[in-house]
């Protein structure tokens, strides 16, 4: 199957500090790709390049090409890129000035969906997909910030899913959550796999192993190894990868 996104010799900088070197990677469609590596290896930056969020950081720049369905991201309007490639952050970021409903509807409104029934449908659908609907259906008008940490993160996933992106980027979505909430989100990722292409950055090796089909290992801004998850974890080509996944460093 053709890859959903193709990254071709991507370099990225913050100011004069280079954080990514010549990264080339094909992200398979309809699968979960995990990005692992020690802190500061550039995995979050890599993720932020995939929806061109990297360029919003002051004094940052990048070079190389990223293709989405064969089209160069940098030749498209950035807004189109972003509703096709959604993102969930490390910390849950519900908009505190909006209700649960409005949080999820925010992206739909940006897309130009304004009819009440269409909005309702989109919001409920997204909340259902994010597995939050059962818990919040009674009070969707409560502030988004009134939810628990795990619920807030699922709200953010619902918000990202509402615009039906083709690719969903997740930047350590569970790192601030307790094991039960983590479990729910991992379960959620498994159900998303069929309809979305998911790229997840994670610190948690066990998580990468549980949720992903493919795993990329980054080290010091370089892509060391990219393969099926089982191979990376059990039969790595590179010594470095093997050391990392077996917990000998990092």
């Amino acid at each position, binding site marked *: 199957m053709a890859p959903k996104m193709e990254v071709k010799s991507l370099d990225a900088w913050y100011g004069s500090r280079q954080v990514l070197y010549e990264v080339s990677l094909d992200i398979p469609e309809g699968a979960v790709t995990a990005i692992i590596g020690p802190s500061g290896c550039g995995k979050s930056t890599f993720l932020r390049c995939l*929806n061109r*969020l990297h360029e*919003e950081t*002051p*004094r940052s720049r990048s070079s190389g090409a990223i293709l989405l369905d064969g089209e160069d991201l940098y030749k498209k*309007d950035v*807004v*189109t890129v*972003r*509703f*096709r490639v*959604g*993102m969930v*952050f490390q*910390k849950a*970021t519900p*908009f*505190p*000035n*909006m*209700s649960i*409903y*409005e949080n999820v509807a*925010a*992206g739909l409104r*940006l*897309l*130009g*969906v304004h009819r009440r029934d269409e909005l*309702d*449908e989109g*919001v*409920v*659908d997204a909340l*259902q*997909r994010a597995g939050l*609907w059962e818990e919040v*259906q009674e009070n*969707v*008008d409560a*502030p988004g*910030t*009134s939810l628990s940490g795990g619920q807030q993160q699922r709200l*953010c996933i619902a*918000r*990202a899913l509402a*615009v*039906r992106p*083709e690719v969903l980027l997740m930047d350590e979505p569970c790192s601030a959550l307790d094991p039960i909430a983590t479990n729910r989100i991992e379960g959620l990722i498994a159900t998303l796999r069929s*309809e979305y292409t998911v790229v997840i950055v994670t610190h948690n090796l066990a998580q990468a192993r549980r949720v992903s089909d493919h795993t990329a290992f980054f080290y010091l801004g370089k892509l060391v190894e990219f393969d099926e998850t089982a191979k990376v974890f059990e039969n790595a080509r590179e010594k470095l990868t093997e050391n990392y996944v077996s917990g000998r460093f990092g």
Partner: protein
Amino acid sequence: MNAARGSTEAKNAPRVRLLRGLDRIFHAATAAFAAGILLLVGTFLAVLLSGAWPAIVRYGFGFLTGDVWDGVHNIYGALPAIVGTLLTSGLALLLAVPIALGVAIFLSDIAPPRLREPLSYVVDLTAAIPSVVLGFWAFIVVVPWMRGTVEPALASVTGGVGPFSGPALGLDILTATIVLAVMILPTIAAVSREALRAVPRIQRESALSLGATRWEATRMVALGQARSGIVGGIILGLGRALGETIAVTMVIGNIFQIPTSLLSPGQTLASQIGNNFGEVGPGIGLDALVELGVILFAITLAVNVIARLLIWRMGENGRSDPSRSRWRLRSPWALARRSRRPLGARSSTAPEPWRERVHAAAAARIVRRRTVQWVMVGLTVACVVVALLPLTSVIITAVEHGGGAVSTASFYTSEPPLECNPGPGRTCSLGGIGPAIEGTLILLGVAALFAVPVGLFAGIYLSEYGRRSRHPLARSASFLADVMTGVPTILVGVFVFVLFLQFDHNSATSALSGGLALGVLMLPIVTRATEESLKSVPNGVREAALALGFPRHRVSLRVVLGSARRAVVTGILLALSRAAGDTAALIATAGGSNFWFQGLDRPTAAITPFIFNNFSSSYSNLQEDAWGAALVLLLLMLVISLGARLATRSTGAGLDGE
């Protein structure tokens, strides 16, 4: 070994007891200074009310509805001033808010990061222009422009009826409105900017990730979350506008009447007090003026309390935390939405067809959204340009008219000239502002003697003792100090004047009363600046010093105050510059004089009253002198406020939480 330690402890015991005692005394002393602020506010209220009491009793509610101010027959009514105040302030808000918001958005979200700081400084500088200088500029630049260009144009567009009817005088409600808008714009812009900046970047990134343009991210997320801070800033600006005396007096035309159009001259509560205060002796006329002050105080107090509650709500780090607040602002449509019909669960639909249709539609709308984005960027840039025009024009005008005067050495050492207009074969001496400079320095000295120790110790109490204990004294003192910074300075002048009247009629207008008035004005600023600077010293510093065995008072005085001294000194300097630039408190108290200092109990000259008394002088040499004084004052203010910015920035212990 143990015996040796025991004997050392025994030897040290008296010393330890002494230090404990000193600690207690220090705690009590600083608490007493903080209580002094409560006492001051209490006295302030009592003096104003008792001063106005005869008028309140005599005129009752009729005072609020009467529309005549007749000092000969002692008939007094406040209605025209109330209407004038509300009208000018309300319209000034309408003018200033959109521009201030544009400026705030540009400086927080749009400007290139490198430009944000310096440009913010420059916009904030407008707030440092003393109101007497702004009024002078408005009198020379804005008034003729309004009279010659704007008002005839407005009249011809509207056909000379409605709100723009009547002759184009230039000195009227509309001009006062514009001057007020210029004054409050930087306040609103600064508070809104900080509120917008306090919204975390990740919130904007979340919006961007949903496919928002930068403008949409600002509108949807940042503006929404900064809303209460922005509203607080607007109300703070409103408070300033309501109480502004001098600049309004200089351009409003000063006719006590209910305005029939925006082009009619009028009067505000503050300008009516400022205009008449020096001219009435003790008696019912004075009491009526004080009652105007009470009304003004009540209005500004309400406005300031609301503003402070809204700004405080932003929390310690300036970030909005709606869940913690009882003062949450809800938009009316959010409330209306509650009545929506219940949502039902749906069977999940496949994303594909929906996605294709909606994404294609969205892609088609991108050009429009981009256009909106660029229009908004253009508008905010235009707002910044408009916001910088007054400052630029003030500086140019002051240099043009006063540049000659300030470049002669004798200007700083001579007395004001005799009134004179140059004619054929007649040249006029320029004179100088020597006595005014001397007077201002003496007034500031008196003010600092009062305000600096009290404010410093009260600030230490609020930060070092009040924070931990959350003692009601600390909370109320801090809150009242904040509210006091918003009290119109004319009222401070009235307060000190009336207070002095109780003791000694003659010294009510004197260097001493003027200095005290400026001190009252400085006190809350020094207190809050000290409190905030000390609070910014990390707790670890205190704990490390305490762990070394330092007594509490030494920790507070040497360690904490020592490490925050630059910010504290900067705060005092800013307070001094506010006092040096104030006119309204002085025209009620210092009395005014053209002569060198004659004693603390005698009226004294000062720079700002000198400008105010001569701004409309028909004698060219006096006008030039006034411009020279204005330029001196302006430069002083600009240097101090820029210096303060730079000083606090380099220590990192900023006054406004930067």
